[in-house]
């Protein structure tokens, strides 16, 4: 079920009313309702893959319990690796089987021996990368004795399948989300209103910004061979805002929806395009994934302890794996590697934790230095997005080559320049609102709160009208494919 669909607009109020009016007397009932609603939510897309979630839930639930009672370290390790193998095995099969098969065949033919293989006809289950990492975090934390395993199967099922964040995150940690299923949840007006506001802003990001940018970005990327350099730059910029609006919009809707049910999810995006260096960008972009890799990969590998070589090796590893997590394509691996290269100078000069505070905090305008830093970081990010969006490495190479040709000086050529101008205007308004709200959890959190009610409601209605106006360009959420 898509957040930006009529189906969800009907589903959410029904579940919300059942949750607070019928199930509010018992925590168990509320949790059971969440599991049921989550399975309906996921099964709406393809019910067959519910078995995967259920299997993953059963495996990690059982392993969690066994890990608690097992004292033998070797057996505990075996249990942990069973969970890792099952979860990553599913992920590997559904997401990467064809990639490895194709590259294996290509490698053999490169060395002169042809082997006959056929790509497998596999459907990628939506959200598999997200819930796999979420359940893995549980088992690893239980193994490390950072977390008590749960004995309540319904609670654990609700944790794995919690519908607001099931298919595209934020990837929650068991230490944050699981205890919330044990706590009595009472309805809080301010939390619910805040949640609604965040949902509204998330929908705006997705429907108005991302989907408008997507039309133009797709048009340019799909016909890049016929476009001049300046049009390709526009294409990259449109994609930059498409992916941000799309993914952070999803996260906002997920977090807002959770708040309606009394849950607090972790922040996933913190205005990343206002970052002053790449390290800051990665502290602000898809935070639930970057911190996951930090905690479960980077630190276990030694992190920044053990000298420069280890630091560099671990940094490259984490960025490459992060790139590969996005999909089975060399473009993602190169994208990750490029970010590692961007990151390297900061790491080697120990400047990777320079910009920890919010840019221009308490001020309307950034300093010239901050502006320059933001622009240069943004440019690097846009450049990397070209590789991320390209169909393959060759496509990315041609795209970038054309940008660095004389045609960059020509005027952009678009089939519908009026639409492009309107979209650019929307993006400017969006950046402006995001800038104003950069000290909040989401841009709309405090915007207009001090205004008189009619004015504030006029702002919300403007957003709602924009949603209706732009509804229809509907595109799938990009991160569903990851």
């Amino acid at each position, binding site marked *: 079920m898509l957040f930006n*669909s*009529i*189906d969800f607009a009907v589903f959410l109020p029904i579940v919300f009313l059942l949750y*607070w*009016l019928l199930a509010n007397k018992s925590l168990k009932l509320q949790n059971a309702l969440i599991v049921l609603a989550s399975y309906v939510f996921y099964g709406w897309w393809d019910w067959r893959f519910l078995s995967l979630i259920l299997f993953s839930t059963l495996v990690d639930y059982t392993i969690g319990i066994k890990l608690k009672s097992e004292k033998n370290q070797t057996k505990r390790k075996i249990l942990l690796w069973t969970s890792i193998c099952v979860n990553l095995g599913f992920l590997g099969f559904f997401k990467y089987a064809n990639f490895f098969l194709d590259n294996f065949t290509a490698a053999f033919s490169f060395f002169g021996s042809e082997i006959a293989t056929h790509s497998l006809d596999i459907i990628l289950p939506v959200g598999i990368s997200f819930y796999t990492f979420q359940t893995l975090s549980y088992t690893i934390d239980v193994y490390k004795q950072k977390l008590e395993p749960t004995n309540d199967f319904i609670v654990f099922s609700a944790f794995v399948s919690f519908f607001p964040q099931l298919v595209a995150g934020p990837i929650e940690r068991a230490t944050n989300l699981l205890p919330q299923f044990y706590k009595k949840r009472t*309805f809080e*007006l301010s939390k*619910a*209103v805040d949640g*609604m506001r965040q949902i509204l802003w998330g929908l705006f990001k997705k429907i108005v910004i991302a989907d408008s940018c997507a039309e133009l970005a797709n048009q340019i990327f799909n016909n890049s061979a016929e476009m001049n350099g300046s049009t390709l730059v526009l294409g990259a910029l449109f994609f930059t805002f498409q992916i941000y609006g799309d993914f952070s919009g999803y996260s906002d809707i997920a977090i807002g929806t959770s708040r309606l049910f009394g849950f607090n999810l972790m922040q996933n995006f913190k205005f990343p395009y206002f970052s002053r260096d790449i390290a800051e960008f990665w502290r602000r972009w898809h935070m639930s994934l970057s911190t996951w890799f930090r905690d479960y990969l980077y630190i276990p590998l030694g992190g920044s302890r053990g000298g420069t070589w280890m630091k560099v090796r671990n940094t490259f590893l984490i960025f490459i794996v992060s790139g590969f997590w996005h999909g089975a394509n060399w473009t993602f691996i190169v994208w990750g590697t490029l970010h590692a290269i961007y990151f390297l100078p900061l790491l080697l000069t120990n400047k990777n934790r320079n910009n920890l505070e919010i840019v221009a905090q308490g001020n309307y305008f950034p300093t010239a230095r901050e502006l320059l830093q933001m622009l240069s970081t943004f440019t690097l990010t846009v450049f990397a997005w070209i590789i991320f969006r390209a169909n393959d490495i060759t496509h990315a190479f041609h795209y970038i080559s054309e940008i660095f040709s004389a045609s960059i000086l020509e005027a952009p050529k678009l089939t519908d320049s009026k639409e492009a101008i309107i979209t650019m205007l929307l993006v400017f308004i969006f950046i402006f609102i995001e800038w104003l709200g950069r000290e909040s959890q989401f841009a709309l959190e405090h915007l207009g709160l001090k205004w008189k009610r009619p004015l504030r*409601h006029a702002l*919300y*209605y403007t957003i*709602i009208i924009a949603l*209706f*106006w*732009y*509804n*229809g360009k*509907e595109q799938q959420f990009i991160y569903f494919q990851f």
Partner: protein
Amino acid sequence: MKKFAAKILKFSIPALLFILISFTYYHISKTKVEAKLTAFSAHAVLLMGDSQIQRLHGDSISQGAKNLASSGEHYYFTYQKLNALIQNKNHRIDTLILGVSIHNFAPVYNRLFNLNFAEGKKSLKRYLYFLPIFDDAGFITTFDKVLKPLISGIYAAPDFGGFYESTNSNPNEEIINKAFNMHFSIKQEEAKFSHSQRDYLYKIDRLCSENNIDLILVSTPYHFDYKEKIDRKYFDFFSKSLKKLKHRRHLNFIEDPIAPRFMSDANHLNKLGAQKYSRIIGKELKAEKRDILHR
């Protein structure tokens, strides 16, 4: 919870009011549309179809004939319009002159009948007042993507169609290419031929039979360069599609060697051309002893 519900309700008042106003407006407009359709149904001869037929002079074909054709009109909408017209039990329609041509089965007609495309959304806006909202035609399959055309359709003037005249002539290559690309380019893997057009053409035929309306098919000429560009498969599809309508009179001028001065663009007659062909069609019909002039 009560406070939350009250807040939501208070916030929703303008939206609810808007919905109420829209419904009222829709019903008032629908009554006006029905009155207009009743007036149109008093004409014995109607011309319907897309922009090709829209150029023809009704009076030159048959005194008092009413042209209700409209640019880029899928037969589904023609069918719905006709259906709405004959709802008037006292209608006097006895002849329908329907435009039918090769480009009518081109991919653009798939887009005009599909709400995933801008063309389809425009169709909804234009024809909303003629459409049954809940039907099994496969046009309105969801309300998800159509809110904007649906709302703007309520407040927009419905497309009844009507005669259109152009004084342009001698179209250049650019104009011809533009029309060709618009009709025959495949945008997003839609089918090469418009099967839905064919289905609704047959439905119009059935509707005419059931209501004793004489259906006459008319194909006006194409510019030579435009005709040359069209894949022969479309000609075959066109011929095959019309085989099932053998029982109907078909005045086919597609192969006519027409001078460019009679064309306003690739596939439309200009004022001169329209006068010429309207007279020819009128004469042909008279010659066939179809005495539609004095009915």
